[in-house]
């Protein structure tokens, strides 16, 4: 199943946040969306997943999602969004409870995703007992449990410290290498973008427009360590964004 965005334009009141976005995503590809703060990256992701309605334009699903997919468009949030009163297992099971699955089937799914995210030993732990990195792993496990066609990742690593970020990035790449999934990955971190993106969409400052789409051919599992090619891409992205970011920074809020 592919996603197609046609002429997406969106405004909050008089303030235009997105203008004429066109994009097609699918086929196990990871698309990173970068841009200066306030350029509407997260808004775009909410529009794609149907949490908000675009002012004009449309988001199309091309083709049927596979039957096994319980929730074709699934988010991973920056703030994890775990229920504090449910255990790790309970949080994953929340996403399955409204689907007609037998107890055994859902238990199998839960065990599978928890082992894929290295959480099997923490089934009964409550969110408050977990570090930020572990919490985000639970959220990733919960997302995997509903077998999404497209993962919508809203700055999933931004709330974590840099070491945890690195570890989780490796986990994400590992997950993708073992079983590729389509994802839209919104971030303000260019390093993450060149590490995880097959394509990188650079948005301009508000109102966000697509400035450039950068393609990186190198395989995800071959991007670790120092890499001149990636550095160059990252440098190019920063060149594209620097002036925009500065201008965005100096803008008065609600001005």
């Amino acid at each position, binding site marked *: 199943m592919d996603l197609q965005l046609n002429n997406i334009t969106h405004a909050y009141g008089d303030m235009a946040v997105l203008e004429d976005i066109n994009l097609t995503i699918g086929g196990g590809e990871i698309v990173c969306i970068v841009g200066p703060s306030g350029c509407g990256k997260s808004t775009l992701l909410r529009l794609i997943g149907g949490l908000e309605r675009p002012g004009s334009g449309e988001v199309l699903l091309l083709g049927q999602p596979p039957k096994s997919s319980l929730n074709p468009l699934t988010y991973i*949030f920056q703030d994890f*969004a775990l*229920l504090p009163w449910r255990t790790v297992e309970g949080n994953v099971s*929340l*996403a399955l409870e409204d689907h007609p699955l037998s107890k055994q089937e859902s238990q199998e799914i839960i065990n599978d995703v928890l082992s894929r995210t290295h959480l099997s030993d923490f089934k009964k732990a409550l969110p408050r007992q977990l570090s930020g990195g572990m919490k985000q792993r639970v959220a990733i496990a919960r997302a995997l449990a509903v077998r999404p066609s497209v993962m919508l990742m809203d700055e999933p690593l931004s709330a974590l410290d840099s070491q945890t970020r690195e570890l989780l990035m490796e986990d994400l790449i590992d997950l993708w290498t073992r079983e590729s999934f389509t994802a839209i990955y919104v971030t303000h971190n260019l390093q993450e973008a060149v590490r995880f993106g097959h394509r990188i969409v650079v948005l301009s400052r508000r109102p966000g427009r697509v400035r450039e789409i950068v393609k990186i051919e190198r395989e995800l599992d071959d991007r670790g360590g120092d890499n001149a090619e990636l550095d160059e891409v990252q440098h190019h992205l920063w060149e594209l964004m620097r002036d925009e970011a500065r201008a965005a920074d100096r803008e008065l809020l609600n001005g």
Partner: protein
Amino acid sequence: MADNRAETVPFRGGGFKHKPAVAVSMMVFVVLILFWEFGSRTGFISNLVLPAPSEAFTAFLQLIETDMLWKHLGASLQRLVLGWTFGTLLGVGVGLLIGLFSIVRAGLSPLVSALFAIPKIALLPLFIIWFGIGEGSKVATILFGTFFPTVIATYGGVDNVDRSLIRMGQSFGLTWLSIVRKIILPGALPAILSGFRISASIGIILLVAAEMIGAEFGVGAYILLAGSLMATDQLIAGVSILSLMGLTMAWIIGKAENYFLKWRM
């Protein structure tokens, strides 16, 4: 400046942190009662002004011996439990409706604010006309008194549920009922339980007020009778029973909080 003296950095932290000190709480009670007893015995506190704690205790023992304690306490507890249970159940229900539906909120929340401020004791004569002089009016007073604070606590709790959790529920395609049951209700529970604390004390206050009109039994009736006979020892005994009732209810709600809000600790 070759001064080689080594000094530990003086500790300046701490200070504003609370340490548990159960002994102190007990001590305050004990010292206060001992002082009071001592004052009464030496005549420093006139018996007319305040009876000695031992006298109040004797009055309390008398209550037990004559089997009147259970009659009074039973009648009071029955009214309190009935009124409080239905008041809070209805309160949680209406609070949820106000929290969840814009139309109900628009219709009822000004009404709730308007009626909340009315002292229910002032309505007691009306309740007697509506529900009779017997149990009905007493239970109704407690019911109305506990209903409003519960409504307000509940819809405040619903309003304060983390929006990002609700958005998460929607993004996973949970049904409306699932979101209410699994996200909104548990999220609002801390506020609902602290509403229970308030409504429990209001319940006891209204219980006494209601029992002061046309009740044969009940702690309130006992206190009223003691007051009109100037039997201050019985009055103190009765008031102590009320205080113990309040402590017990606070303890039960504390237990409930420990159980239902384990995830918060």
